[in-house]
């Protein structure tokens, strides 16, 4: 099974190399199909690996294997190793699964792009990196995947590089991610300082107290918070979320795959991975929960005022990621992963649906210029509505179950966390309702732009929508909290999280009330949205400018860092270095010169002859040595 497991990341890597070197000779569609098949087979193998794990006793469900030693020096040895356990098996399943669908969709979506093959080169490399990230058996190999997905994200956001906005957005994403990576790196250094290893096995063992070098609660706080800085960068948490909104400059399949379903959830995965460490520190878990729920609320508010079909979804993703961190911080690791997977289904569906709309609207992205598209694009419209109901949290759609689990745990940790999360749930149903009504229902405002006939997308695009819609509906089946026999995901992941997973502190009565509450919140949001946005597409009072600008966080950061940074760079480059530093050193040299004849000689144009004399002298000396040496 180990040899098969290696193929999971290797297949997309092979696809990358084939398209990189031979793509130019392949027909466009072949190159796209090849990339899709590579990821598709990886999915099949992921399924085989999953069933293999399933066949083992639950305590034995870990395959920890080193392929080769990547680097070593002193006490440090880093193996290139894979780690398949219930958690990573869930990750590879949904990553390869969703990626296959999005690859297939892209064949149609990118058909008219002259650089379609390059697109698939990056896309395969991305999937490879993502799989390395989740399958790594130590922090450093995970970091390889972590940085790899970041680089692919940079290349794909700035895919249409002749647009300055796309180029800047790609750069911004990479740099802000690097801010997070700074935290990730320091976290690793600190771990190594304590545990003398960066293998999950040893580090998590130390956190559980089984290793010889135990991690103290204080150390756990430092480690968890440093790694959380990394997670906050990658998973776009406050205040580092600004890059994700700009990332919508990338082609829509990229937004679906990287900036909704997979890469941005890497931070959540990392936090779930270090659950035993977070468990040791209330400071860390509370911080994560507060940052998460704040992000969820702040982004949901911003989403209510966006007019770009993709920017609504971008803020929505930020908000949903906030929910996942709320789950992590509340000790609901299973719920966070559950939400991650279901979110991957419905958010990928929303993005691909929006891509289908953008396609139909000839690249128009302003929802105020759409309306009534349901009639002309029934498949896109219908599946989009399913995704909306799912993210809104209505039963029986998957979002109801996953978000509900997060909120239950939040309530168990602190009712305040729950309250903010509940308000956000209303907002979520509302902003998505606004988008659905403005795009698919109401008046056909696009007709004002002239004679224009939007149409449904080709099958290669609608089939993935249908599959994702089915998954969005049925995803809840993974973890039905009715009885201990039906919460499959919880049972599957329990060996991974163990005692770190929070046990709810209240009875089934409270639980039922809270769950009914969830339904009510969703209903309120949907109702409000229909009252407002079905009637009119213009409600300035509900679309505050400050919210549209994402609370001005981006501008604030720009002012604080970019502007000041530019000033500093110009100052140092134009003045300090050439005049002050150089001046000081040259001034010192001049002082010497005034007292030393040698310097005058050098500056008076004798340099050349002097240099020649030295060099000839050296050559003669060397010649002398040679003769001495040989005879």
């Amino acid at each position, binding site marked *: 099974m180990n040899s098969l497991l290696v193929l999971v990341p290797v297949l997309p890597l092979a696809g990358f190399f084939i398209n990189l070197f031979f793509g130019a000779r392949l027909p466009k569609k072949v190159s796209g199909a090849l990339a899709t098949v590579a990821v598709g087979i990886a999915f099949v193998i992921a399924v085989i690996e999953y069933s293999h794990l399933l066949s083992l006793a639950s305590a034995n469900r870990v395959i920890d294997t080193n392929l080769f030693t990547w680097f070593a*020096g002193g006490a440090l040895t880093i193996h290139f190793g894979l780690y398949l356990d219930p958690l990573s098996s869930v990750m590879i399943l949904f990553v390869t699964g969703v990626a296959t669908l999005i690859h297939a969709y892209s064949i149609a979506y990118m058909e008219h792009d002259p650089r379609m093959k390059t697109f698939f080169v990056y896309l395969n490399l991305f999937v490879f990196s993502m799989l390395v990230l989740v399958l790594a058996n130590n922090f450093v190999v995970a*970091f390889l995947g972590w*940085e790899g997905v970041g680089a692919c994200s940079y290349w794909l956001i700035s895919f249409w*590089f002749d647009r*300055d906005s796309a180029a800047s957005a790609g750069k911004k994403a990479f740099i802000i991610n690097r801010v997070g990576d*700074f935290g990730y790196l320091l976290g690793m250094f600190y771990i190594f300082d304590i545990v003398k290893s960066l293998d999950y096995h040893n580090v998590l063992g130390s956190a559980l107290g089984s290793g010889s070098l135990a991690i103290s609660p204080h150390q756990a706080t430092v480690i968890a918070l440093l790694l959380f800085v990394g997670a906050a960068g990658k998973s776009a948490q406050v205040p580092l979320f600004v890059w994700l909104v700009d990332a919508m400059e990338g082609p829509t399949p990229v937004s679906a795959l990287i900036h909704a379903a997979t890469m941005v959830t890497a931070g959540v995965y990392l936090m779930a991975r270090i659950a035993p460490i977070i468990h040791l520190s209330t400071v860390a878990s509370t911080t994560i929960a507060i940052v998460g729920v704040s992000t969820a609320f702040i982004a949901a508010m911003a989403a209510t005022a966006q007019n770009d079909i993709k920017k609504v979804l971008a803020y929505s993703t930020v908000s949903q990621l906030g929910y996942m961190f709320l789950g992590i911080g509340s000790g609901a690791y299973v719920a966070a992963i559950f939400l991650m997977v279901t979110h991957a289904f419905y958010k990928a569906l929303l993005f691909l649906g929006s891509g289908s709309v953008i396609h139909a609207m000839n690249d128009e992205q302003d929802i105020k210029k759409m309306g009534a598209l349901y009639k002309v694009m029934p498949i896109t419209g219908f599946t989009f509505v399913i995704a909306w109901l799912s993210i809104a949290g209505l039963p029986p759609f998957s979002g109801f179950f996953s978000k509900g689990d997060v909120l239950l745990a939040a309530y168990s940790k602190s009712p305040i966390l729950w309250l903010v999360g509940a308000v956000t749930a209303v907002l979520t149903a509302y902003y998505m309702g606004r988008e659905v009504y403005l795009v698919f229902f109401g008046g056909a405002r696009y007709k004002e732009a002239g004679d224009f006939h939007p149409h449904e997308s080709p099958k290669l695009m609608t089939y993935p929508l249908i599959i994702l819609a089915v998954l969005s509906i049925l995803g809840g089946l993974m973890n039905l909290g009715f009885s201990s026999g039906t919460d499959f995901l919880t049972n599957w992941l329990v060996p991974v999280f163990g005692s770190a997973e929070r046990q709810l502190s209240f009875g089934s009565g409270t639980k039922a009330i809270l769950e009914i509450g969830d339904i009510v919140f969703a209903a309120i949001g949907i109702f409000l949205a229909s009252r407002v946005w079905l009637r009119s597409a213009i409600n300035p009072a509900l679309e505050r400018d400050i919210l549209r600008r994402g609370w001005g966080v981006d501008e604030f950061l720009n002012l604080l860092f970019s502007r000041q940074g530019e000033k500093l760079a110009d100052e140092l480059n134009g003045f300090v270095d050439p005049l002050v530093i150089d001046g000081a050193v040259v001034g010192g040299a001049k002082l010497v010169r005034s007292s030393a004849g040698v310097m005058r000689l050098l500056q008076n144009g004798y*340099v050349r002859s002097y240099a020649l004399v030295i060099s000839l002298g*050296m050559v003669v000396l060397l010649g002398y040595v040679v003769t001495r040496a040989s005879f």
Partner: protein
Amino acid sequence: MTSLVEALIIFPAVVALFLALLPKSSSKAITQSITTVAMVALLIAAAVIAVTFKAGFSGYQFVSSYSWIPAFGISWKMGVDGISLFLVVLTAVIFPIAYIGAGEKGNSKSFAAWLLLLEAACFGSFLSIDLFAFFVTFELTLIPAYFIIGSWGYEKSGPAAIKFFIYTFLGSALLLVGMLALVFIHASQGHPITFDITKLTNTTMASSTEKWLFAAFTAAFAVKAPMFPFHTWSPDAYRQSPTAGVMVLAAVMAKLGTYGILRFDLSLFPHATIAFTPLILTLAVIGIIYGAIVAAGEKDVKRMLAYSSLSHMGFIILGIFGLTSIGAAGGVLQMINHGIYTAALFLLVGYLYAKTDIFDMSKMGGLQKKLPILAGIFTLFVMASVGLPGLSGFVGEFMILLGTFSGHRWWAVVGATGVILSAVYMLWSYQQIFHGSKEMALAEDSTSKSLDLSVRQISVLAPLVLLVVLVGVYPRPLLSRITPSVNALISHVDAAKNAPAAIAKLNVSGKVTH
């Protein structure tokens, strides 16, 4: 094998002399083929040395030793250990690529001769075990480099070459004084007079004397690397050098500085090393951040890369003065990595200049459209330079920071911000050159129908592309040879930490004879 070590130094010098003596009328083809063949032969020799080098030993291997000027204890003593091995290989790889990549300048007899002489001097510096031989070859690099910058450089190369010469020459003068003082002190203690560094390590010195000598040595190396604040010659020299010159300058000669620090400061002056550690670490960290910020404000792509190098040299020095095996081994690895991607970036910039006639990035833009292959290779090296794991650049940087973190935590923390800053200036530069809607008119390349890189240019770059990936994915063969020597050096410094009087002796017992 010993004769291969000797050949690395003597052969290129002899070929250089031969080229210099060729009649003026001799054809370009002769110059080109002689130089290319010579450099490739040297590359093969270096490769053979690397392959036959025994991993797991800390001492010198393939030692070639002859008495030279016995009256002064000067000997020709050359050999290679884990610290110098891959610097020798790097030298052997970069020179032919620089020469072939330089294009038409390579037709000049004197250009080729100077380049070969420079190669000989670089090999000599890395291979010398005798301090005098080191000084001679270290000095000797100055002259060919001066002429290559001054005579084949860009419009303002004259002043830049003189600045380069004066800076490094002043450093060398201090090195000379320091070296002689050390040898005399050693001899005055009843030892036979010698310049052999393996023997000079047991010199007993007053603490203040040791510090002065440390300062004298370090000054020379700090200029060469360059290390903040002795770097101001480098943006001018790098900018004005011809492509081959700057490749060698940044990729190989800069390492003479960091190599010198590691080899001589740590082994000869361990107490002073410890005493100066906070100062040097601080300068290294300032260099990392300062270099990166200035690079971000730079419009000229070559000067940007010069400041980028300043920042990267800061990392290497940080690793060395973190005084841990992991960090110092990372430092040595990073010397190699920096050599690979810097050489490639300067070569690519040279190719870019051939098409655009400018180095000013603010006037470039949108070039990825017309030059997809060049842009693709460029982006690879950009990623290597910012330390993307999987490419060379990451492992070295990681080990440097991890190692330094354990003993000198806050310097490592501040230094690690370089990870963010490098992304800022490299990606901003890439965006300015290759992204955006600008349409630039490009000069047709005479050798190729397409505007993009020619097959010849791609094949010149290919070895560097291969290395940047290979060393990134599998740096182990390098590290397993680097680490034992670095370990011995670091435990030598550690011993000094515990022994206040300078009686610690570098353990060279791991020596292998062939």
